[in-house]
């Protein structure tokens, strides 16, 4: 990292950085990225239940002169949060409830934990940036200012409880609490919203392409672009957003360049990983099916959960284009791993996963 780049950062290379969820899919890459950028003092917060291999990767990240402190704890414990945030200049908050199907669990592991971390960070008064890692799942994708383009100016879901998706509910609420604490206590915060982060370690096909719930894969996205971001690119974007001056209070979306259509992605996946049967469901039909499911769930008072509904259709399967202009312009990010190379690595990991299964 050159001196000019360092001057653009809000902290010096010796100042302490906390990464929560550091042993996670993105977190472990973020740690590596920060070390590559020359930061020498990292605190990695991991759950005691974290997978041993990923924790070992972190401890293996130690470079000459760099200090990677591994702190085990639970963000639901205020004591653990106080210990984790002590003397920290930047917090990268990646820990969240992923894959939770129940609303209370997702909420507890995303919102209550974030609130605890924010409160702990107020105590020390040395925090320069709180990087809230959110998700594309918070956008409504309806009534956008620019019809087909989803960017940072797009509205967030007003009624996430109606989406039938615990994760997006929790993420919307997480963003709300971060904004509330920033307003009330003047905590410097920036929000990063990655699209679908892919790469070795996150093998399943994203629900934005389609669903395999009913025994056969229903391809719902057709010619839609899928907002992929390769995990290393995403980690670098998160790192830069937290470090760059003048990002306080902003939101940054993260997607790579040259986004493939869902159809192209699925074709490549079938060619390079495994063959399976899929049925393409045209957009108008998937919309009608989501509508009918939504109405039935309401009429039957929850005999079928409202998993499929129009809000989800808009968010996941509506024809949309994505923009990473703001990220490029404001923090100088560029996706280092091109889509073709990212897919090559991802498909290889998928093939290994299939072989190991």
């Amino acid at each position, binding site marked *: 990292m050159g001196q000019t780049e360092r001057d653009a950062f809000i902290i010096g290379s010796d100042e302490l950085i906390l990464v929560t969820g550091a042993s996670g899919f993105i977190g472990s890459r973020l740690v590596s990225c920060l070390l590559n950028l020359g930061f020498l003092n990292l605190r990695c917060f991991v*759950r005691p*239940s974290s997978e041993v291999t990923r924790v070992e990767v972190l401890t293996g990240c130690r470079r000459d002169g760099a200090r990677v402190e591994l702190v085990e704890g639970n963000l639901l414990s205020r004591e653990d949060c106080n210990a984790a945030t002590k003397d920290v200049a930047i917090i990268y908050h990646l820990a969240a409830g992923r894959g939770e199907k*129940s*609303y*209370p669990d997702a*909420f507890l592991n995303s919102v209550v934990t974030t609130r605890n971390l924010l409160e702990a960070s107020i105590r020390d008064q040395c925090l320069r940036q709180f990087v809230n890692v959110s998700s594309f799942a918070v956008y409504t994708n309806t009534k956008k200012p620019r019809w087909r383009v989803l960017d940072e100016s797009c509205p967030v879901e007003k009624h996430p409880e109606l989406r039938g998706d615990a994760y997006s509910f929790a993420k919307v609420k997480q963003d709300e609490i971060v904004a509330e604490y920033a307003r009330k206590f003047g905590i410097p915060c920036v929000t990063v919203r990655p699209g679908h982060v892919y790469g070795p370690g996150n093998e399943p096909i994203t629900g934005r392409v389609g669903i395999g719930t009913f025994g056969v894969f229903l391809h719902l996205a057709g010619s839609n672009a899928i907002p992929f971001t390769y995990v290393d690119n995403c980690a670098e974007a998160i790192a830069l957003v937290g470090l760059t001056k003048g990002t306080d209070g902003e939101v940054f979306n993260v997607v790579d360049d040259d986004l493939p259509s869902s159809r192209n992605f699925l074709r490549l996946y079938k060619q390079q990983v495994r063959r399976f049967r899929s049925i393409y469901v045209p957009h108008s039909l998937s919309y009608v099916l989501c509508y009918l499911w939504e109405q039935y769930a309401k009429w039957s008072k929850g005999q079928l959960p409202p998993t499929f509904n129009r809000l989800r259709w808009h968010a996941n399967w509506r024809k949309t284009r994505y923009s990473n202009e703001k990220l490029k312009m404001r923090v100088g990010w560029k996706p280092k791993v091109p889509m073709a190379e990212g897919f090559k690595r991802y498909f290889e990991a998928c093939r290994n996963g299939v072989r190991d299964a």
Partner: protein
Amino acid sequence: MLKVAIVGCGKIADDHAAQIQRIEGCEIVGVCDREPLMARQLYERFPVKQHFSDLRELLCDAKPDVVHITTPPESHSDIARLCLDWGSHVYVEKPFTLCEDDARTLIALATEKGLKITAGHDDQFRHAARRMRALVQSGFLGSGPVHMESYYCYELGQTAYARAILADREHWVWRLPGKLLQNIISHGIARIAEFLSGDSLEVVAYGFTSPALKRMGGSEIIDELRVIICEQERTTAYFTFSSQMRPALHQFRIYGDRNGLILDQDQETLIKLRGKRYVSYAEKFIPPVSFARQYLGNLATNARSFLARDFHMKSGMKYLIESFYRSILEGAPDPIPHSQILLTTRIMDAIFAQLDAQQQSVESRVQASVY
């Protein structure tokens, strides 16, 4: 309008709120959780009037007629006592209490104050379970149950959950006398308790940690349990809890001196077992046809319930809550007799006492071999 409150806004509270809103003539006047954000999220997602983080405030401001207690089990007893003291009827999620003494105290307090109390053994009120009860009461088994088998399995295959509990020593599961088992087995034990009187009960329990859980570092948690229960050398029962056997059954078999029944909770089926045999080769051909016919009958019943919008995953909970409210409003009998609640806790106490003794004897054997 019956005023209802929910205390404890975790996962199971969602099920309570969803079922309560399906019942006419009641409203949720308040929800409460020590963590204000948790109370607020439940309030935001369901038609709830107020949210609280202090139980006394809830009781004082919302003045609920009924309180549903959905907190971790160790707090059930204290919260229920407070609610009864304030004059509210109480529905306590399973496990009812941590021991029989606590259960006895609560039931005595409710009786003294003329209030209703019940335990959340809602699996006993699912469609097929209710059909089974009706058949048993009609004398289908003969003069009464001779033997029962209750399977209640739990897939620990979701290793993230197991790892989270194993890694977090502060998790409330560790503070339960029966640890993981205490939170899970009461449904399966309650099924047996329903058909026992509780006199001269003998319980023999054997538990161990499965190799799979040991590999995950969970050797302190018992996830395989076999129990024999015997009442007055008249009625016996086997209870099986397993995290490893497949299929992970939730099944109950009951045999009388005339006929038997098999209840499958997952498939929502009830199969009659004919006590008498057919002659010669007829036994090889007629029963399979009879079973096929019965399964088709179950399919038709389930389909009818589904089409009638009465086949929710938590249909048993709705039925139990409705019955409980009826017992409050109309003086109908308790949906679960107090004696059954007490017997369930007594059997669980006996199981955990024996597992404790086994554990201690294993530890002392290990120590002896070290020296």
